């Protein structure tokens, strides 16, 4: 979005939102799933999301958790695509499909998931 010289730097206020109790819990959950530090995820969220999306993050995560696909859950795809909107749904589906293909070709499940997590991190890093 256009940034004017007279507009405020919102990073500090966005950080305050993410430091609240419920936000901190979901940030920790996504960071643990992706295997990165909480601070790194906070930086990504601050850069990519507006204030109201950050405020609504816990409620969106509650809505996104309602999936029974175990691979999507272990990759945190619903949280990243549906809740935090860091990736599009198409990108999420593509990564999920890639894991399936690798498992079908005999790659161990853990290795396939680890590779998918690396790909997700490459895509969401600012």
């Amino acid at each position, binding site marked *: *979005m*256009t*940034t004017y010289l007279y507009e*405020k730097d*919102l990073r500090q*206020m966005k950080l305050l939102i993410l430091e*609240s*109790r*419920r936000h901190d819990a979901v940030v920790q959950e996504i960071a643990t799933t992706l295997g990165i530090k909480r601070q790194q995820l906070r930086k990504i969220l601050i850069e*990519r999301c*507006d*204030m*109201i*999306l950050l*405020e*609504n993050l*816990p*409620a*969106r995560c*509650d*809505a*996104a958790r309602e999936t029974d696909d175990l691979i999507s859950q272990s990759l945190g795809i619903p949280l990243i695509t*549906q809740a935090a909107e860091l990736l599009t749904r198409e990108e999420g589906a593509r990564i999920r499909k890639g894991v399936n293909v690798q498992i079908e070709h005999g790659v161990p499940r853990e290795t396939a998931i680890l590779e998918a997590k690396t790909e997700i991190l490459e895509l969401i890093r600012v």
Partner: protein
Amino acid sequence: MKKTVDVSLPIGPMHPLFKEPCRIKCETRGEFVLSAEVELGYVKKGIERIMRGRPWQEVMFLAERVCGICSVVHNYVFIEAVENVSGIAPTERAAYLRVIVNELDRMQSHLLANYSYCYTIEHETLAMYLLNLRETVMDQLELITGARVTCAFIIPGGVRCDLSADGAASLRTALDHIDSELSRFVRIFETGPLIGLRSKGVGLLTKEAAIEAHAAGPTARASGIPDDLRNIHPTYRLLDFKPVIRYEGDNYARIMVRFEEVFQSTGLIRTALALMKEGPIRGGGTIKAGTVRYRGEAPRGELLYDLTTDEHGRILEIAIQTPSIMNIQVCAHAMLKNAQSAADITAIFISSDPCIACTER
């Protein structure tokens, strides 16, 4: 968000149509709205931090100051949350009195929201009629609780004051007046050609987008989501409560859901008055240590209190999730996105009944 076009349309923080300050930044191509984001932080209260470490008797008063419009429901949900922790149940008469006051609060909130919408689309006559009718509701709220806004009516185990026979008669007369007047106003809204042009098919919210953003209250119910927490509330179940649902998902549906819910509220109050028997209004009880995540249905939707108390009744941790957070977010990212005219931005925003005081709790 990344910049995609040159035309950026900032609305607010001070805008004649906004009751409270917030900034909507829209990217437009001609009249077409490509995207919108919301900037907050103009009226941040930090009320959760003020509440932390204080006894429940103080937090009770702070809770109803989260919102200046739906203060009763904050009092209601906070007290039910601490009752839940402590195993306290209200007396039967108090439970019905709580419903009566809560529904009056919902009625005045919905009438104010619809007033704001009519004022935004420049139907000032209907707007003023609705604001005048809201005063009837506010008078009844004051008659029962002793205050118009910060009533502090609900306390653990009961309510603060009883409703006399004269008070009940006055309430019944007021409900009849509201029903007959509101029927007239709803007819004006339904048949107004200008209103139809500004409202039907404008600000569409699909059921999928509403579910994804966890949209709540009339905003969600106007998009076909049947969620209403009154469905699972023990007192409302005795009143045979059924949520109001519409499927159009536009501005018109959101306003009509609120109108229909006002009629529903008058019905619920009448049933509560009929079922309410004489008896004590205070049961007493002691607040105990524990943690609870308690949800209640505010006029704008799901209100959540996530709190931890200690054995002295102090609130150690508290997080409040208000429905406006979800509704403003879904409004900015789903309803405003792809709006056909920049002139509709304010109408779409107001139709979601945004409360900045709740959002910036």
